[in-house]
């Protein structure tokens, strides 16, 4: 079967998409060395640089969040594949004279391995880099060890917060402390209705029946929940997921949270709003305040239908940073 995607040579898709992205937002970002996205105008060196790495195919993540108030650089691999360590080191070198470097790494085998290898290599060159690992998927259970949890879309609100902190001139330790504070109290859970097609391999990843959904599926169609189950109403799904998330972050009455519905690809904003409505009702029904919210595609998985629901608990400082100005192509705050 022909892939229903707009592609040229599938092996060149990552290069082409990055080229297109750079041509589309030249005032904000640029592409260097084929796979490294940086700001069009770098920030001043007396600030800490925030860098991330990850596979392509999840647009706008992660490169869509390079820009004032968020990332300084995003190192891109091929589709669903973390970049190799040498490319990451190349990016780290660009920021060696900055006040500091923080690398945000999502917890996936490939991302971790290549990041760790890159840190070793950078270290040998005398480049000091700190790392924040996000592993907020609660599919394996809310008490599962961090090593078992995947990093899903929660890295992006976290990047928003530490990116703003870096912009304000905080030093590495302050930013790390702040980041870990938010990191500890954030959680994501995904649900899938239709699986994605791998744009290079051309085949569907995973499988779901015509009347099935799977809560807890990973970012590419890898399972991880309790397996496929019959489809349910939007309200049922929203309620089931948000209750788990509230418990996972242990949000208490009076606390302020971010509530984000992140579409996977084919799921419409219409549906996200319907889901958000119910999740909001449950959250506020427990006396928790939704201080910031969003329904959008921030980290997608090709044309998969489904969404990730995210909750992160704020304190006054993280909330202010979350709301601080930013000018990344896919996250603008005035």
């Amino acid at each position, binding site marked *: 079967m022909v892939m229903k995607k707009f592609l040229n040579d599938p092996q060149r898709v990552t290069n082409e998409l990055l080229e297109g992205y750079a041509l589309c937002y030249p005032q904000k970002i640029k592409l260097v060395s084929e796979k490294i996205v940086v700001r069009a105008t770098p920030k001043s060196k007396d600030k800490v640089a925030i860098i991330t790495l990850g*596979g392509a195919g999840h647009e706008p993540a992660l490169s869509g969040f390079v820009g004032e108030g968020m990332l300084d650089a995003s190192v891109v691999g*091929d589709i*669903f594949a973390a970049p*190799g360590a040498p490319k990451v080191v190349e990016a780290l070198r660009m920021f060696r004279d900055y006040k500091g470097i923080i690398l945000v790494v999502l917890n996936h*085998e*490939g991302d971790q*391995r290549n990041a760790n290898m890159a840190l070793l290599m950078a270290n040998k060159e005398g480049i000091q880099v700190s790392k924040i690992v996000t592993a907020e998927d609660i599919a394996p259970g809310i008490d599962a060890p961090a090593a*078992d949890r995947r990093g899903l879309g929660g890295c992006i609100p976290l990047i928003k917060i530490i990116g703003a902190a870096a912009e304000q001139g905080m030093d590495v330790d302050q930013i790390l402390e702040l980041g870990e504070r938010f990191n500890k109290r954030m959680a994501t859970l995904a649900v899938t209705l239709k699986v994605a097609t*791998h744009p290079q391999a051309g085949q569907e990843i995973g499988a779901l029946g015509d009347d099935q959904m799977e809560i807890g599926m990973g970012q590419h169609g890898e399972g991880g929940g309790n397996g496929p189950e019959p489809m349910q109403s939007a309200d049922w799904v929203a309620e089931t997921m948000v209750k788990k998330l509230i418990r996972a972050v242990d949000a208490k009455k009076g606390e302020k949270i971010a509530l984000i519905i992140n579409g996977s690809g084919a799921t419409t904003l219409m549906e996200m709003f319907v889901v958000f409505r119910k999740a909001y009702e449950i959250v506020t029904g427990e006396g928790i305040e939704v201080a910031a919210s969003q329904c959008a595609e921030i980290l997608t998985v090709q044309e998969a239908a489904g969404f990730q629901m995210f909750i992160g608990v704020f304190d006054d400082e993280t909330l202010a940073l979350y709301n601080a100005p930013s000018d990344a192509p896919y996250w603008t705050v005035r």
Partner: protein
Amino acid sequence: MTTEFTKDVLLKALRLALASVEEHFDELNALDAATGDGDHGTAIVATMKAAVEAAEQPAGLSDTLSNIAMGIMSATGGSTSSLNGSFYMGLSSGAVAEALTPSQTVAMLQSGLDMMKTTTNAVVGDKTMMDAMIPAIEAASSTLASNSGATLSELFAASAVAAREGAAKTADYVAKFGRARNLGERSKGSCDAGATSLALIFQAFADAVAEG
């Protein structure tokens, strides 16, 4: 038939390996799609391409192996990149001459495995490429131990068989590492993609050595 492991043998083996993973491209993607993200065919083809390209450059055996390691890591990412990269890095340290005797070759393979082990805790039974890698190296080494006159060709033939058998067993294992880990019991039933591609690669090495 080859009696010593040289750069020529290496290049030939890598070319056969590339052809083999290319031939099994769809199958490897499909295996990865069952429990992971469906791209191991893509990743391993890119890996072996990078390896062949690096091996085609003029350099001695040890340098070639370390160029291969860097080439792989530069060209590809994902889980396989650093695992394969560290394997070739280890081979490079173990390549003490331009033409290795059977026993030097076994030592080189062992050095590759040792280097890999510094980057992964996966052991046999964890449903990863280590399920092919560990038995393959052990087979070469025990073949030599039981017959100190074993030829290079006998060593690699034993490795290839062990890798294939090791990969086949992964169908019964529950994944402990990689993207398949979150599946738990549901990861049973299909072979691990990385172990399967490694078995193909060991077979290519055996063929290259046998044909000489």
